[in-house]
């Protein structure tokens, strides 16, 4: 039964091949392009809404073209809340993200070299501990950490948000280790022959060679710190200390509830650093995700 059907189908399909071949790329681009548009439509809508006058945002929400460009949204949004402007919030976010990233990447590189190249007693145990930490839900450590930081008087300061980053981030250690493993051991050996210590080998030979991995780790660290919400929510309980992520929440609270334009404008601005980094370092991001499963 199935054989004749197949034979019948084979005939015309073969004959049609040239024309179906011409149509295929078009259908492909139409489908993939349309689905891609659906994917990024919300983002386009966010940006478009930030430029619409307040009364227009929800009247024809699907429309992406504002009747006039309402720059005043950016002014009213930037003005912030109760005297704290987005200048403060962006400065806080930058301070936290840049300092955390420096600490996270530098400490992770040191640890990665230790795990990848130096044989020492107990290495397997500590490496196992690190892999477990990677899968540990942060809810388990959140409360005691909060108690700890409150006991040493670190609440309402940037310290609880930044300092833990200086103690290596397992994901980055893993990423950098993968990279160090691709560097031939002969290089280390040759340097050792020349009388280099482990420190010299690390700083003079390894570090210059792992720059791509360090860039990838820096990008992700910056993203994660920039987007972080729960740690600032727990620890930065004064508006002067708010990063952008926490400040945006204020648009949803009571008094400011009606400044939709300002809310969309500041939401859009909060994504700008992420987009800029993405467009500059796209290659590193794609490779970082593909090789180590970073999110």
């Amino acid at each position, binding site marked *: 039964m199935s054989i004749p059907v197949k034979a019948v189908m084979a005939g015309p399909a073969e004959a049609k091949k040239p024309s179906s071949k011409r149509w295929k790329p078009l259908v492909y681009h139409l489908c993939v392009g349309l689905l891609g548009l659906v994917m990024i439509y919300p983002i386009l809508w966010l940006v478009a809404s930030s430029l619409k006058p307040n009364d227009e945002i929800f009247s024809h929400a699907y429309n992406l073209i504002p009747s006039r460009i309402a720059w005043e949204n950016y002014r009213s949004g930037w003005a912030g809340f109760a005297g704290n402007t987005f200048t403060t919030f962006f400065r806080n976010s930058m301070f936290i993200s840049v300092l955390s990233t420096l600490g996270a990447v530098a400490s992770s590189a040191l640890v990665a070299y230790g795990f990848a190249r130096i044989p020492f007693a107990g290495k397997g145990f500590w490496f196992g501990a690190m892999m477990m930490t990677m899968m540990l839900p942060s809810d388990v450590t959140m409360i005691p950490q909060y108690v700890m930081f409150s006991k040493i008087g670190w609440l309402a300061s940037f310290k609880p948000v930044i300092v833990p980053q200086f103690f290596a981030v397992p994901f980055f250690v893993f990423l950098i280790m993968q990279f160090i493993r691709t560097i031939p051991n002969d290089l280390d050996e040759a340097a050792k022959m020349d009388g280099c210590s482990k420190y010299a080998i690390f700083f003079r030979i390894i570090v210059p060679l792992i720059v791509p991995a360090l860039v990838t780790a820096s990008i992700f660290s910056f993203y994660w710190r920039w987007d972080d919400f729960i740690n600032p929510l727990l620890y930065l309980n004064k508006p002067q200390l708010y990063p952008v992520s926490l400040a945006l929440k204020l648009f949803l609270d009571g008094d400011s509830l009606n400044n939709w334009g300002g809310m969309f404008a500041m939401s859009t601005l909060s*994504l700008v650093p992420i987009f800029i980094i993405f467009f500059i370092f796209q290659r590193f991001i794609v490779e970082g995700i593909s090789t180590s499963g970073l*999110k």
Partner: protein
Amino acid sequence: MTKLRENNHLVGYLFTAPFILGFLIFTLFPMLASLYYSFTDYNLFEAPNWIGTDNYRTMFSGDDQYWKSVSVTFTYVVASVPLRLAFALLVAMLLNKTVGGIGLYRSAYYLPSLIGGSVAVSIMWTQIFGDKGLLNSFLGLIGIHSTTSWIGTPGTAIWTLIALSVWQFGSSMLIFLAGLKGIPAQLYEAASVDGAGAARRFFKITLPMLSPIILFNLIMQTISAFMTFTPAYIISRGDGGPLDSTLLYSLYLYKRAFQFYEMGYASAMAWVMLLTIGLIALILFQTSKYWVHYESRGES
């Protein structure tokens, strides 16, 4: 020789010191403290008071909200993780080509997962699914007049969170793309010569070859789905509503700890979560030998 080895021990510990110290201070000690708190009544201002297994008992038999939050979380995890991975794989296969513009498509599909974790996107989501939001506006275009607030209705609110999670399939997609590029083309050619159709090639070659990557993704995404907090907090303004329908486990834990100052109860919740995640990861690993294909074994 012995001197060199001693040196290595010291140098090894010096290089890995940041992690080891951090592990002891910020992971191991807090874990033990949290286990201790879970058997106490602790409000942060007075010393913890040992109450044995009361917290666990209340959780399992006297707290309806807890079970509501468990059921919301399971719905969220069970729906969002497989859907996200399925989308990621489907789109990765669509994009596993060398045609013009492929880089642009890849970026477009990846962008949502790049920004998806931000508060800005969660805020945007509340407006898309609000009563006058983007979704209702589009429905109006095709003649369906809806004034439903999708995030304000108990039956649909959790699904907007699931949609937000699925929308961010981009990073899994990139991992799958890398995996697909690693499958030797000869396998597909040989299968085609043998008369295998597209579906058969997918089930007999693509899926088995990708299965280690699928396992890795499944485990990591399940863990992060269990810990989802920010979008639930933002769309429900911190309370898990309407009618606790978005009260994800982490959000309920946060409320118990930092709104009601029940640190002991919240710590017990955290340990139940840890054990649940551990159990699920274990089950996934254990069953993986039946469906994950490792090349060293499968070549013959």
